């Protein structure tokens, strides 16, 4: 079994590395556009998306549109405090008209948003498979298109964002997912055991290969001329690499 184990492991690694090439749309770009669309619809000062980290101990602000954009990105807030924490732990959305009324709360909000807004609407990003994060709209305009149906409309954005993130994660964990599925479906006990063992092993994607895969994905979305040009470049580079290897 040792050899086939090794082969399976390599296939798993390859699938994990190449996952990004199959990701439906560039994930960050989609999230940014969701944040920007929400900000405009609410005529808001800012809109941000924060995702739960692997340990589920913090929410990390991933993308932001509008005021405080630079400060917010990458900001980490523990799940046991503030409005973002409340939303991901309770699964309940909340809107607060004047956060400055409560100094402690305002500080928590400021820590998670980069500035102290007056009003905030926060909605969980959740699918039926679990909690993913939170979307926040800060200081929406009084005459915004969404006025009156704020939460319902933000809920639509939240759904879209949650599904996009989940989709992208599934592709990134393609290797693991494939092996889990194969492990469960095979009747061969030995094979089943090794497939499931590989699926359980943490497999970090090879950063360079993953980047290359992501480039292919982006190129696929561009026009035929760009694709042709890129293919020619790569073929030429590959010919050069091969010729060097032969000489060496």
């Amino acid at each position, binding site marked *: 079994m040792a050899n086939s184990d090794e082969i399976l492991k390599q296939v798993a690694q390859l699938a994990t590395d190449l996952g990004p090439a199959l990701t439906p749309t560039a994930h960050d770009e989609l999230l940014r556009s969701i944040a920007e669309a929400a900000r405009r619809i609410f005529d808001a000062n800012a809109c941000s998306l924060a995702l*739960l980290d692997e*340990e*589920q*101990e913090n929410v990390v602000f991933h993308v932001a549109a509008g005021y405080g954009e630079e400060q917010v990105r990458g900001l980490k807030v523990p*799940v*046991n*405090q503030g409005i973002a*924490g*409340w939303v*991901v*732990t*309770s*699964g*309940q*959305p*909340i*809107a*607060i*008209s*004047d*956060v400055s*009324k*409560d*100094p*402690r*709360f305002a500080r928590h909000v400021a820590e998670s948003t980069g500035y102290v807004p007056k009003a905030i*609407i926060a*909605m*969980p990003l*959740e*699918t*039926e*498979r*679990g*909690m993913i994060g939170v979307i926040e709209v800060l200081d929406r305009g009084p005459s915004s298109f969404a006025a009156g149906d704020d*939460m*319902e409309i933000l*809920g639509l954005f*939240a*759904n879209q964002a949650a599904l996009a993130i989940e989709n992208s994660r599934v592709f990134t964990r393609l290797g693991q997912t494939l092996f889990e599925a194969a492990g469960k479906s095979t009747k061969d006990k030995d094979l089943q055991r090794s497939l499931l063992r590989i699926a359980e092993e943490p497999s970090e994607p090879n950063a360079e290969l993953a980047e290359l895969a992501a480039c292919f994905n982006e190129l696929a979305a561009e026009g035929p001329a760009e694709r042709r040009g890129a293919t020619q470049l790569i073929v030429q580079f590959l010919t050069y690499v091969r010729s060097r290897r032969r000489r060496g």
Partner: protein
Amino acid sequence: MVKPAWSWQFDADHLPRVPKLKLPNEITTDWAWSGGTGAGVKVAVIDSGIDASHPAVGKIAGAVAFEHDPESPEGVKVIEGAHEDLFGHGTACAGIIRHAAPEAEIFSVRVLGARLSGKGVVFAAGLRWAIDNGMNVVNMSLSTGKRDYFDLFHELADEAYFRRVVLVSAVNNVDSPSYPSLYASVLSVAAHGGKDPFKFDYNPAPPVEFGAPGIDIEVPWLNGGTIEATGNSFAAPHITGLVCRMLSKHPQLTPFQVKTILHSLADNAG
């Protein structure tokens, strides 16, 4: 005589007498809850904890906190005794209940705030505690949309129903299932536009049965203060408060009788 399974439950020596619900000609608020203070009614607030020093909450009858503990067989650690409210939300819910039912015995069952991992199991343990410890009403202004928990919460909701524990749950905001608000025995609540804490609507179509105030309302929060907030989670304790008032006047009511009375007294009924 061949008896089908369970028919013995209806044998004369088994079937208990049940209290008859003596309805007046018409169910009125006067009969249902006027003068009811919540006295003698135990209500659990499953939430982020309650700040008992908040003037809008006052004395609470008890507190217990649940945390995820992967080492223990149940996956949950129980911490009895006073605790703080990390978010302000549990205090908001308790304040709303206190306003409607000033003499209700409010118990804080903290399941939120420690860690997120094992959240569903911790939430379920809090609900289990409320059912096992003689609570009459349980307010749950929280939910989970995770399908894995459907069975677990369904089982608990059914058990609560048969033990005459009224469960009140806020629905999630997005158009997807949220547990435990989805089950038929639970009083599911969303926010309607009204401000009167004693007025509510009844909606016969799922997923939400009751509408109560929860839009731009002033609620107690951290440090003895208040905030103006919006959320279905503030609508649920309005219904919980009314149920407490009702049960203090009519302690024998079952969850389905409570629903019948609320249905008749809804603002949109008639």
